[in-house]
């Protein structure tokens, strides 16, 4: 245990001087790192603790013109001591090229410290020797105006930032205000300059590897509006610079000289890339950046003639002021007013940021459901290097009560615009009964089958005429045949009587028999035993013409009489022809 305590004490004892030594600085500083052969160089070896046994380097490649000059400064500020001891040499280079000034050594508190070697570039002799003490030279060497461009190869409409910084080294100071001689013009850019408000902030920074103080004079956000090589014109300032001279005033302070220098930021060239043409969406309107897109409506249910608001909003980061918002399309029954645009944009050093909105006021004129078409917005994302399309949700506006208003619409039959009122009734309900027809009816008009019908009907005419002609001929034939039939009939019944014409008594007997036979055959009458009254009665019933009956009865009477009374050949002849006539008369009687 005791051994550990001893060790801890030992560590503290050893560590104590190290803590002191850590604050010792011994550095070599050159007045310039690059000089002409005919110029001179000053090198200071500076330490912050008092040291002894200074050992300068051998300065190979230089001729020592003066030195070592020793200077000590010791000051107390707010109870804090600051001390510096400097050994200075003035050197003239002997040859061109990179020359390394070797290490110097010093002993501080019996410790040896060495400075770092310094490399100096010696160039050709310059015309005007850069006198390290010339105020004009010092001013131009120690004050620099720089335009820092965030991206020299941006896309069209991609934000780039130009920052103008004024670097001032520790050797000079600027105490009064500068004057702007030439303001940069950004011909092919949309630009916005961010003013530095109030007192300029002073920052510590490096300029070409050396410590400098700088102020940000101005920040400008640029959006290139053209592709190709674009140049930014320089910013030129007239700056009064206070340079410390070697002379001292009465009180031993260094005197300062004021030099007015015109310094310029230099011309910068920016190569602007065009936006890719491949996969460019049709609705792309030039938005470049990172955006969100949304549409909204203030109400979804309302009555006709009331108003609602439809807003299209793009929010995000990018060229917000430089593109057009997508234009929505509205149903034709909506009255649409010019949109009100509201921008909430703040510009920062990285570009514009905020939201752009267009608010449309809509007044529906009729009742119904109105789906508002969905809207999409496309932009180019310069980081992903591709186009992105964002689609907002669609909305449906339900107009509940509508006025009895006429709307223009196409009527079904002639597609001409005629006003058909949408009556106050609601949207009509579906039909519950249907009459089905084949979806694809085969057209019948003009087909062969149709023309066959027409031809068939037309053919009826000649066919009909031909048929009627045939019929007429046929009808003529029947008259002749009836004549023949009658003759045959008479011949049939009267053949016996005809054969007996020369014998009157036999003739009349045959005639009477044949008359009875005829009546029996023709009228289905059994007349042989009947009286003449009965015969005439029956024949009347059968519609035999009275004249024919009378003549038939007369003939039968004559036949009966001829059995008893003699007759002549003339009578026979008369009665035979009488019988022929009567038979044909009775025969023509309709049943």
């Amino acid at each position, binding site marked *: 245990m005791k051994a550990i305590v001893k060790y801890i004490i030992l560590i503290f004892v050893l560590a104590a001087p190290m803590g002191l030594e850590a604050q010792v600085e011994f550095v070599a500083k050159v007045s310039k790192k690059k000089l002409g052969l005919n110029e001179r160089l000053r090198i200071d070896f500076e330490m912050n603790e008092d040291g002894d046994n200074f050992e300068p380097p051998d300065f190979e490649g230089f001729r020592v013109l003066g030195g070592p000059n020793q200077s000590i400064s010791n000051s107390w500020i707010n109870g804090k001591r600051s001390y510096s001891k400097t050994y200075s040499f003035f050197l003239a280079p002997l040859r061109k090229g990179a020359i390394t000034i070797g290490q110097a050594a010093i002993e501080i508190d019996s410790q040896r410290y060495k400075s770092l070697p310094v490399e100096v570039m010696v160039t050709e002799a310059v015309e005007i020797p850069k006198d390290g003490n010339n105020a004009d030279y010092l001013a131009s060497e120690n004050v620099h105006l720089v335009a820092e461009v965030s991206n020299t190869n941006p896309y069209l409409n991609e934000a780039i930032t130009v920052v103008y910084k004024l670097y001032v080294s520790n050797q000079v100071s600027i105490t009064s205000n500068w004057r702007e001689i030439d303001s940069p013009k950004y011909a092919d850019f949309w630009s916005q300059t961010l003013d530095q408000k109030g007192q300029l902030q002073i920052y510590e920074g490096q300029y070409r590897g050396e410590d400098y103080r700088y102020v940000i004079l101005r920040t400008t956000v640029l959006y290139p509006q053209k592709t190709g090589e674009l140049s930014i014109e320089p910013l030129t300032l007239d700056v009064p610079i206070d340079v410390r001279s070697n002379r001292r005033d009465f009180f031993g302070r260094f005197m300062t000289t004021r030099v007015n220098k015109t310094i310029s930021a230099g011309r910068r060239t920016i190569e602007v890339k065009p936006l890719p043409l491949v996969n460019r969406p049709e609705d792309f309107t030039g938005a470049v950046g990172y955006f969100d897109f949304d549409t909204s409506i203030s109400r979804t249910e309302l009555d006709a003639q009331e108003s609602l608001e439809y807003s299209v909003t793009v929010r995000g980061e990018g060229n917000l002021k430089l593109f057009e918002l997508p234009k929505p399309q509205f149903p034709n029954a909506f009255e649409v007013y010019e949109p009100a645009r509201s921008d909430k944009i703040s510009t920062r050093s990285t570009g514009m940021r905020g939201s752009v909105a267009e608010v449309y006021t809509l007044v529906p004129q009729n009742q119904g459901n109105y789906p508002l*078409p969905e809207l999409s917005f496309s932009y180019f994302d310069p980081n992903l290097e591709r186009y992105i399309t964002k689609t907002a949700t669609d909305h449906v506006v339900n107009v509940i009560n509508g006025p009895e208003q006429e709307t223009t619409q196409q009527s079904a039959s*002639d597609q001409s615009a005629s006003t058909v009122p949408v009556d106050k009734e609601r949207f009509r309900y579906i039909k519950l009964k249907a009459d*089905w027809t084949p979806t694809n*009816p085969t057209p019948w008009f003009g087909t062969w089958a149709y023309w066959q019908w027409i031809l068939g009907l037309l053919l009826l005419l000649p066919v009909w005429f031909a048929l009627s002609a045939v019929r007429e001929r046929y009808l003529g034939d029947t008259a002749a045949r009836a004549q023949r039939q009658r003759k045959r009939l008479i011949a049939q019944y009267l053949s016996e009587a005809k054969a007996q014409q020369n014998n009157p008594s036999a003739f009349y007997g045959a005639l009477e028999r044949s008359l009875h036979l005829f009546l029996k055959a023709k009228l289905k009458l059994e007349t042989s035993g009947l009286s003449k009254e009965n015969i005439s009665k029956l024949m009347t019933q059968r519609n035999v013409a009275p004249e024919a009956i009378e003549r038939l009865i007369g003939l039968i009477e004559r036949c009966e009489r001829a059995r008893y009374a003699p007759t002549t050949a003339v009578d026979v002849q008369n009665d035979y022809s009488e019988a022929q006539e009567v038979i044909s008369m009775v025969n023509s009687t309709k049943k």
Partner: protein
Amino acid sequence: MKGLSQGQADNWFDQGNQLYKNQQYKEAIMRWEAVLESGVHSGEIYFNMANAYYYLNDLASSIYYYEKALELAPKDPDIQANRAYVQNALIDVVRAQPKTLFQKWDEASGQLLTADAWAWLSILFMALFVFAVLSFRWVESPGAKRLSFVTALLSLMLFGGSVFLGQKTQSYSKNYRWAIVFQQEMSVRSGPRLSDDALFELHAGTKLRLLQTQDQWQEVELTDGRRGWVLAQDLKAL
């Protein structure tokens, strides 16, 4: 009707109606589609489908089926009333050019009856003509003869007229083919190339007359007389 009885079509139609009543519009449309696939249609089923699409906020389909319904039932007041609702919600308003009286007659005559109805009418008049000619031959009184002569002459003229109108109706349905825009927004170009100038924009639900085609491009005419070329895929022919 192939393989589907009348009763089956009615059954599916009724099922669709029931689904519509329960506001299941998508399912109702599926039932009705099945009826259409079976090879029968009617103005009523197209009307019902159009109504269902209206509630689904598909305006282009809605207009499409209203137009189809009107082809089958041109005078139906229900179809016209509901179509007016949908037309109010469309973006494009196409005002037809005023037509001369003759043009109106010309178009009306092409839509008076179907071609087949004209065919039947012409057959009827031809039959009347034949009958009148025959009766002229057979009747004897001079009054009746004169009547049948006049009838024959008139029916012959009417026959010619109905054949003419039938032809006209047929050529009308061939020349006047219509389509509905189904693309939300499309450009009408001056020629059948993407490089041709976009003349104007049309939106879903607008009715167009189809003219000629080349490759996938279709020449169209609006009822107000504007013409141009569009991609055929953006349209759906009636």
